[in-house]
């Protein structure tokens, strides 16, 4: 395996290995714990973090009549789904597209755009069913909802995910999550992956990593959900999974030709800032939309999302200013994305002051990760791991620190609100996500590598993805 041929990566690999040894008992222990949890009557104590009832409702005491579809909630969830779409395209497409060299601009933009197409179809066909369909062994949803079979357009889902909006609205909102998660990984292998292999890899990854993990954490019956881990909008499911998989990709694919020697400055930073801005804009749908209704919880998630993001951008900028001597625009934009990542799992559980702390942490930690990367020598082209892996991990753990039932009675208190146990639960969830993402991705990559090869040829890399993979040029002079 090419990974192990790089001596400078050995420490890294050791860290990974130790994580596995930790992960295996964690998964087993977690499953055990989860089993126990499910035995207790669900209505009383089972935490339902992601599927928190629209927070305007009183903490359900007496069995109430089933809530009706609500136009306001539906409007908000549909709006949110559209916003999350805008995160992938144009958001991520441009954020990443601006950071690569001109000869790979289109190829990189295409990766986000075509993932949007590919996973949209995969999700409708089997992805949604595997993720949120009827539970099988706490591990995976069944294929009962294949092709949206039984996914009603005019009734809320029966599992209780989103009681006041049509089931299909919840489904399409979740579709956008699956889409962006897969697209985030592309930052790691930018500028060198074969287009056909990339398509196959993405389809396999969505099916064998994303769908199970979404089920573990959010699906009714999922073992991590049963553990009581909190992940409001996808710190583990979206960001750790994509970020850690990105690390695996960077390690397996190896560096770009000329990495560290050639000039690889971003070809269009205004495009990147535009992308970051669209990410910020769309992320309100991502986080506040995860309240699945237009009430207090959505409002609170909206506020902390904005605040953490702003704080993280400032923190990254200041860290850079101190460490390097100049505040950079790419730094501010990256910091904003890091903040968005970190607040994601916490957004339904923490208040505004906590969100500032989470944001500042995100800015500083992710900037550090990016600096450290250039020491360690692996080539995570666009820092998908540095921002999403590290930011997601920090966010998931920080949720265990800052969560408060005063914000969301359906959540839990974190360490700073008197419940140290939540940190441990969060840690287990993080560990399991890391393990699944890293090893699952390794396996998929190896399979694709053996069957079709992962990288473009040296000459193709030289010419760039735009001409070699697509026979197009991003910018033409006439």
């Amino acid at each position: 395996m090419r990974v192990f041929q790089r001596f400078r990566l050995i420490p890294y690999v050791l860290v990974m290995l130790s994580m596995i040894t930790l992960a295996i008992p964690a998964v087993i222990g977690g499953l055990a714990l989860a089993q126990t949890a499910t035995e207790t009557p669900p209505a009383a104590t089972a935490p339902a973090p992601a599927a928190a009832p629209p927070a305007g409702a009183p903490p359900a005491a007496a069995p109430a009549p089933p809530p009706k579809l609500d136009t306001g909630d539906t409007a908000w969830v549909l709006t949110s789904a559209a916003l999350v779409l805008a995160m992938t395209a144009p958001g991520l497409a441009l954020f990443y597209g601006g950071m690569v060299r001109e000869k790979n601009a289109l190829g990189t933009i295409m990766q986000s755009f075509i993932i949007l197409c590919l996973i949209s179809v995969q999700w409708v066909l089997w992805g949604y069913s595997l993720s949120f369909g009827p539970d099988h062994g706490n591990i995976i949803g069944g294929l009962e909802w294949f092709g949206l079979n039984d996914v009603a357009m005019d009734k809320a889902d029966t599992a209780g995910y989103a009681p006041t909006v049509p089931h299909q609205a919840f489904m399409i909102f979740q579709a956008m999550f699956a889409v962006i998660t897969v697209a985030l990984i592309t930052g790691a292998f930018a500028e060198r992956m074969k287009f056909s292999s990339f398509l196959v890899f993405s389809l396999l990854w969505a099916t064998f990593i994303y769908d199970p993990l979404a089920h573990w954490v959010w699906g009714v019956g999922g073992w991590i959900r049963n553990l009581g881990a909190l992940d409001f909008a996808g710190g583990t499911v979206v960001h750790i999974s994509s970020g850690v998989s990105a690390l695996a990709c960077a390690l397996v694919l190896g560096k770009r030709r000329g990495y560290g020697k050639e000039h690889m400055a971003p070809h269009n930073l205004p495009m990147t800032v535009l992308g970051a801005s669209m990410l910020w804009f769309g992320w309100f749908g991502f986080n506040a939309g995860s309240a699945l209704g237009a009430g207090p919880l959505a409002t609170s998630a909206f506020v902390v999302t904005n605040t953490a993001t702003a704080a993280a951008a400032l923190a990254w900028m200041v860290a850079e200013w101190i460490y390097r001597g100049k505040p950079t625009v790419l730094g501010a934009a990256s910091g904003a994305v890091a903040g968005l990542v970190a607040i994601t799992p916490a957004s339904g559980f923490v208040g505004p002051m906590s969100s500032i702390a989470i944001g500042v942490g995100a800015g500083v930690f992710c900037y550090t990760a990016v600096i450290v990367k250039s020491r360690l020598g692996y080539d995570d082209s666009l820092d998908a791991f540095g921002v999403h892996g590290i930011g997601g991990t920090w966010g998931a753990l920080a949720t265990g620190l800052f969560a408060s039932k005063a914000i969301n009675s359906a959540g839990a208190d974190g360490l700073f609100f008197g419940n140290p146990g939540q940190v441990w639960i969060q840690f287990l969830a993080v560990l399991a996500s890391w393990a699944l993402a890293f090893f699952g991705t390794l396996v998929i990559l190896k399979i694709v590598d053996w069957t079709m090869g992962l990288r473009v040829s040296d000459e193709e890399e030289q010419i760039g993805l735009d001409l070699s993979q697509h026979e197009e040029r991003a910018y033409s002079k006439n």
Partner: protein
Amino acid sequence: MKKIEAIIKPFKLEEVKDALTEVGIYGMTVTEVRGYGRQKGQKESYRGAEYTVEFVPKTKIEVVIADNLVEKVVETILRTAKTGSIGDGKIFVTVLGDAVRIRTGETGERAL
């Protein structure tokens, strides 16, 4: 006929052009180039990566003139393109075989 090539700092172009016009030179051709020399490039920094681009933007002016104008033109460029700091650039003089105006077919100095 001679061809004068001057590599200058880009923001000096207008000044040089105006001065040349004043001494009676009404035609020139300008190219954006990058220069490598004693002048150091600008530091750039993108997340983890730092670069110093060793090539700095320069502007090349090409003027074809009659032999008797060489001194005046060189002197004019020297005067207007000079800032006194490193990187002001160079002037190169070459002998030119012939010149033709495409529109009319005129040749030699009448083509200029």
